[in-house]
């Protein structure tokens, strides 16, 4: 499982420059932002509190990227929608996967569109 996610991560990195081709409509990005705030921001927001430690997702990614990339997901410019969706449904390390009763497929598409909105 980890290998699969890592592989998609590499693909996401390589394909980052074409992310903008699949531009989402503004309504979808707004809906995605709303669901991101509800489901994801409680761990992944950019709050500087205690170096982000109170936001375990941000703390973990800060430690992983050591300043090369933002720890807060909404600030990333290298996330592509397929990768975001994979992590939502399959989890990563201590982050568990999310069921469709929590984040429906449509809501997942919206969140992915929001997080991929700045992909370069």
């Amino acid at each position, binding site marked *: 499982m*980890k290998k699969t996610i890592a592989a998609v991560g590499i693909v996401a990195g390589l394909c980052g420059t074409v992310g903008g081709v699949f531009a989402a409509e503004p309504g979808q990005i707004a809906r995605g932002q709303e669901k991101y705030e509800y489901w994801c921001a409680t761990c992944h927001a950019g709050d*500087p509190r205690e170096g982000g430690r109170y936001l375990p997702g941000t703390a973990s990614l800060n430690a992983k990227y050591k300043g090369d990339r933002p720890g807060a997901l909404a600030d990333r410019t290298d996330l592509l929608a397929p990768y975001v969706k994979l992590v939502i449904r399959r989890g990563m*390390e*201590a982050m568990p*996967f999310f069921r*469709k009763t929590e984040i429906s497929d449509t809501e997942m598409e919206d969140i992915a569109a929001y997080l991929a909105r700045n992909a370069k």
Partner: protein
Amino acid sequence: MPIKLPPGISASTHASAVKELQRVVGSDWVFTSEEDLDTYRDAYSIRWGHEDEYLASAAVAPKSVEEVQAIVRIANKYKIPLYPISTGKNLTYGGSAPTYSGSIVLDLKRMNRVLEVDEKRAFALVEPGCSYFDLYRYVKDKGLKLWIDCPDPGWGSPIGNALEHGVGYTASQFRDHWGAHCGMEVVTPTGEIMRTGMGALPGAKTWQEYKYGVGPHVDGLFAQSNFGIVTKMGFWLMPQPEAWLTGTVNVPKYSDFIPLVDHCNYLEDAMIATGQAIYSSGLGGPQNGAEVQALMANRYPTLAELDAYAEKKGVPAWRVKLQFYGPPEVIQARWEYAQERIAKAIPGATFTNFETLPMPLTEAQEKTHHLVNFGIPNMAIFAGMAREPGVADPKDGHTDFFAVCPRTGEAVFKALKLVYDTQKELGVPLTASPFRGPVTWHHKCFFMGAPPVDSQRNDPAFNRRMRTLYDAYVKKFSDAGFPPYRTNPGAQDLLAAQFSFNDNVLLRFQEALKDGIDPNGILSPGRYGVWPKRLRPKRA
């Protein structure tokens, strides 16, 4: 993972049941694909990847109590077990996976309404899919001057957490979430809707205020159990206090912990300091790691050795952060009394880190305070597992072990040595320490944690070792009279078996109830050791 059918149920019977479930909730809300069912695995399971990992055969997600009833009738018709979950975030204790493989998970997440919050009478009524975040946002959006009491992860369900005997962080009478519940609606295993306590009275006016109604009080049957599906539940809430005050008591000697605990118990029981008392030691921590290991090199240190070590280090052996809620003048007087009382009794006690704040916290204060002590749900606890400097190899999860101990220093010392003894006996890496304080989630008992038993989704052999360690903790602590207050599904039979007074009469009583209430044995077989007759293991 390949889909496992319940033993004794054919594929065609299962398919017929699934079709009927689809007619009740719509095909979008019945999940049978391998990909969907993977999200119903227990993400933190120490059985992950093992042949006896608990797996669902399907999941069904109703939107209403009537749909829950219809699902229960279908399960009875086909004798297929159901396993209800609330928000499914009971991580470390089973997550969204069933306790009996092949069960159909009854996912109640879509039933997520806050039905009522009464500010004047300080109670709430919610559905199982409602999370602590949802309830907190509801109260905040309406500007109600009430606090909720939440556990560490804010995405959990007040109902699910209380039914697991979960615990929290504010004032004494609210931290025990089961103790603070009042009134429930239950769908019975035969599909009837029942209301408990005053809810049984048509036109009741105090369903969420007076627990008992009349006659036998049955609410306890629905916690850590398999006697019904709770579809509504009430909770008492705490009025927002005018202010919060904290101060830390420091004591020099390791053995000072014994009188310190006695005084803090008095302060809490006499309702002088009703906030959570947070114990810690100045002698623990990574900076002392090598010295602590040296202390335990050959055997567990004696009290005299620990006192000598504390004296040598010259830092307080123990600290307790006391917390007070109430009008500023009142809590100031209470804190002064606490200082006077402890200063008289424990030579060398010092008092530091005073702080008083009007409530609610400002946005800036929220960034610097332990939010759960203010009834504000968050996810900070997960930072303990996340990758960070000093944590080279983040784990995929863990299963918690917290033993219920008497509130005495002596019991704490005994529990700390039990962790050491268990780890030594099994030859696992030594993470025991004489400097772990008790956890004060419950106001009448200490919960003593063993260092988390980790899980790795890509390492079944590692998980196998962790299962052995966890079971050893259950056995050893239960033998000492300190059983865990809850456990992951894999250890529920073992834990239930420890409650063996008079030839396991309690479990036999529960089984007799199970047979009467759930004749087809369709609801959560095996949960906390209670099996329906047809699946019951034979006892020696």
